[in-house]
């Protein structure tokens, strides 16, 4: 029987397909198989030997069935593996093509600015692009004949109406809409218009983002804090802020906002003209008369305002050196901004 066991196991291992294995199974375990045949000889044994013989045959039968089952698993696995191999695809071929669009770099930049300032409590107020002389100038302390009008070449529509030259009239409209409620904290993004011929850094239509904060305790110090956070987050690097005294009739004190150059980190390069600084905004404390014009009492509240050139920020962030690219709408240019 031991000799038989060795033979059977040998045949099980040698079976290389499910059919061959079935053949082995029938040959030994089938009703007429060789193991069943062993029992036919049991009558020839002495009665006291019979139980032991029966147990040995059963043990052999069990062992063989186990072996067959395990060999079957093995053969099934092999067959599956082979069939999977046959189904294999060339994963290096290109995937299905989806044409993805994208947002304009100005929109992307504005969204980031909006999101950063949102975290500091600023809401968004959209103001009109055609304006009255009164709102664009007079209410901002720039009376008729004021030399500051030279700073902003204006497209007039009529004697008294014009294309806004800055987003600052949005300060007045936004304040009036709030009817004296505090705190005032909003930004005014949008197009502005200047009578400047187009070149690499000028376009008659461009974008600004105005910011205004008014409360019982708003200070110049806070202005620096807000601008600093905005610039650091927007450029994703440590940016030094430098405030230079300047003049805007609607703020006092007024300043220009310089940031350490985001290309050379202040070392000096061609973008910053070697100075290590880039001018990015005008800002200041809201002039008392402007607060009054917006319906707020300068004896009770104070405020700051800032105005960033959105085009300039987008150009610095994305390394664009010619403003005309922003308005050229070339697919090859716009497609570059589909990513983050």
């Amino acid at each position: 029987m031991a000799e038989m066991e060795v033979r059977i196991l040998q045949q099980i291992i040698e079976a290389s397909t499910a059919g061959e294995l079935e053949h082995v199974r029938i040959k030994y375990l089938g009703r007429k198989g060789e193991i069943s045949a062993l029992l036919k000889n049991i009558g020839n044994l002495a009665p006291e030997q019979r139980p032991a013989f029966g147990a040995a045959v059963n043990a052999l039968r069990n062992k063989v069935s186990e072996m067959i089952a395990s060999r079957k698993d093995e053969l099934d696995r092999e067959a599956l593996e082979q069939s999977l191999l046959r189904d294999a695809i060339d994963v290096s071929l290109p995937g299905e093509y989806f044409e993805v669009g994208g947002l304009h770099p100005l929109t992307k930049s504005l969204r980031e600015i909006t999101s950063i300032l949102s975290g500091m409590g600023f809401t968004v107020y959209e103001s009109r692009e055609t304006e009255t002389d009164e709102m664009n100038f007079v209410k901002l302390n720039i009376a008729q004949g004021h030399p500051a009008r030279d700073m902003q070449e204006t497209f007039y529509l009529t004697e008294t109406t014009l294309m806004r030259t800055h987003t600052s009239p949005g300060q007045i409209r936004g304040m009036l809409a709030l009817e004296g409620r505090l705190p005032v904290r909003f930004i005014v993004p949008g197009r502005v218009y200047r009578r400047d011929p187009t070149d690499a850094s000028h376009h008659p239509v461009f974008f600004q983002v105005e910011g205004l904060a008014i409360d019982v305790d708003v200070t110049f110090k806070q202005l620096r804090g807000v601008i600093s956070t905005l610039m650091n987050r927007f450029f994703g690097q440590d940016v030094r802020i430098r405030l230079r005294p300047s003049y805007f009739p609607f703020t006092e004190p007024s300043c220009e906002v310089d940031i350490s150059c985001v290309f050379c980190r202040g070392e000096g390069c061609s973008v910053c003209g070697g100075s290590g600084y880039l001018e990015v905004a005008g800002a200041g404390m809201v002039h008392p008369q402007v607060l009054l014009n917006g319906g707020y009492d300068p004896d009770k509240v104070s405020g700051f305002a800032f105005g960033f050139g959105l085009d300039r920020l987008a150009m610095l962030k994305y390394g664009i050196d010619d403003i005309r690219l922003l308005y050229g709408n070339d697919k090859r240019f716009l497609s570059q901004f589909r990513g983050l």
Partner: protein
Amino acid sequence: MRVPWTWLNEYVDLPWDPQEAAHRLAMAGINVEELTHEKLGVSSVVSAKILDVKPHPRNPGQKIGLLDTGTERLQIVSGAPGFKQGNITLVAKPGATLPGGLTIELKEIDGVASQGMAVCTNELLTGQPPRPFEDIILLPPGTALGIPAGELFELDDWVMELDLTVNYSHCLGILGIAIEAAALAKRSLKLPEVLARWNWADTHGSQKPEPDHKGDPEFKIDLPQPEFCPRYVGKVIEDVRFAYSPVNMERRLLLAGQRPLNLIVDVTNYVMLETGQPLHAFDADQIKGKTIIVRSSSPGERVVTLDDVDRELPENTILITDASGPIGIAGVMGGKATEITEATRKVLIESAYFDPLTVRLGSQKLKLRTEAALRFEKGVDPTAQAAIAERAATLIADLSGGTPVPGYAETNYLDVEPKRIVLHMRIVERLLGTKFSPETCKNILEGINFQVEDMRTHTEDASVSVVVPPRRVDIHGEVDLVEEVARHYGYDNLGTGDLSRAVPGGITDPGLLHVEKIRDLLASHGGLECVTNSLVNPEDLASLGWDPDDPRGNPVRLQHPLSSEESVLRTSLLPGLVKVASSNTRSGIQGLFAWEIGRVFFPSQELLPVETRQIGLVSYGVLRPKTWLGGQEESGFYRMKGVIDSLMSLLGVADVKYLPKAGMPFHPGRSAKIVANMSTIGEIGDLHPVCLKRLDLPMSVTACWLSLEGLLSMVTPAESVAPSRFMPVERDLAVIVPEDVSGGEVIDSISKTGRHLVAVTLFDVWKKPPVPEGYKSLAFRLVYQPQDRTLTEEELAEDRDRIMDKLRQDYKAVLRS
């Protein structure tokens, strides 16, 4: 304004190099745009004594001199009157260079060798030949010999080019900048004696009495319109003779951007650059009637100005006139008839105060933006006229030997009250966020010429009371003083802080939030966002077929556009987007889907135009190239319509209808009006072939515009219904209808007639056999899903019959078997 470094340092010894000074000034608000080292390029020009002079043998106009440079002796030929024995002059030796690359060689003059050249100021500073009556440079007796010109004069210098903000009129004179610089450097000022007497820059401001007015100037000043000219001082100088200015004065004027003319005119310019007060010099003998009348122009009056232009004067121009008529344009430019010439013996220096706005408007109308006008229009010190005239007279007398007549011809209606302002420390702290002591403020303000009259140090009411120097016409109130303190303390020394009150921010206007979602949707559907110019060409509107009777053909116009291409406000996003399509085709781009969201403008009865927002889309060509997986995807009506469908479902705008045929610029058979809730909110279609041709577009272009305001008014938020627990059932339904039946109506009809339908999808349109000519087959997949059960076969058949009855009745439809 250009500021020569040595000139600035005449009034204050700055402890800095020019770079550091430029930085300090910029950080105090005096914006130095550029700092340049101006080198004249003069070499081998040295002082030399004329030892001996003898006549030229052949040319009586020339002399032959022997000159000693200390180390060598040179024979030099010159015809200048000052070429006399004993004089010390400047000589350009052979090999010397002069400005403009001029080189001096050994040469012969009428047969006599000249080892160089004795030079005049014009040759030294510009390399140009002597001007009429110009002599060689004569140096003071005792000047050492062989000294290079560069050591004798300020030939090489640094120049700061300032770009001043309009409020900094007090820095339109170099003295004003010196006051700022002295305060920043904590150095004292050194003033010209006559100005020191007037105490112009003293901490007491200009409140002290001006120089005395005794004397008999013989001229009468008449100011009939004091609102335009309230103050006019005339200072007379007699016995002047014609001369050119000293080398250093000419050099400073050149560096500052003024062309030297003659000593008298140069002095008026020099003193203007020094003090900021424009002056004018008249040949006093040419002033008719010994009277000056300052009045506004009458119609048709003319004057020939110094630049030799005969000008017709716009009405209400302020004129300087004498008994004969106009002799100058007040605050802008003098007249030819009374200009200083070689023959001038008596001079009247005008030092006046003109109304800033009047000068500004006048100079703008005349397009004469002179240095004088730029200063007057920003406001000069209204108290300084006499002192500054005196300064000019003294300089002229010192330099050319004229005799100032004591006193002034003056008329004055100005009574300048000293401006007093109290600066409270609590206001300083409230605005800046930093505590300041009254002492600090006092020191800063005194440093820049404010007179501190009182100081309170009690904490509750700490303050300083100041008198504003009258030259500071930009200071009106307490906040202006806060800025003065802050900028001299240093903006960057004020520290940083955070907004104190925490409030929620972000986009709160739902409309603005929706707009951002629309942007994302359009981008995710393959659209590239554009930003096009909102100033457009009226011809572009006409090219799209919009006549003036179409609101879109009747735009708001700019009064003074830069060009006709950008002369009107867009009435639609389409002109810009169509241009985007055409510029991209010209760059060889095979396909494009682009969009923009922006404002469009229409004239209105109100003061301001109507502004409304639009969404615009444009596409052409191959949007998805053929790949190994499938064919290419092309731009077209249905693709863009699909994007609009997505947009409508985003916004929850239901019941959108596409009615055939939009107007221009669309193809009449391939376009639709988009109607929702009974109102037209946009148009979509392929462009009309006529437009394509006009715009030189080589292929079919599809476009769409939507009224954003219209869409936003129809936004319906999504509502949720629990999904049915029962399996949906799908059934296909194919019908044959006459070809002209609108497929959209059939879909609508099925959706409305069928019961428990959750989707009706058109999956096939067939117009060829076996479908008979003039008919089309439409195949739909219907999805049924009631909430409460699964439909039985009988119910489904019933529904199909109901639908078919309706379609048969309305569209003569038959079931396709």
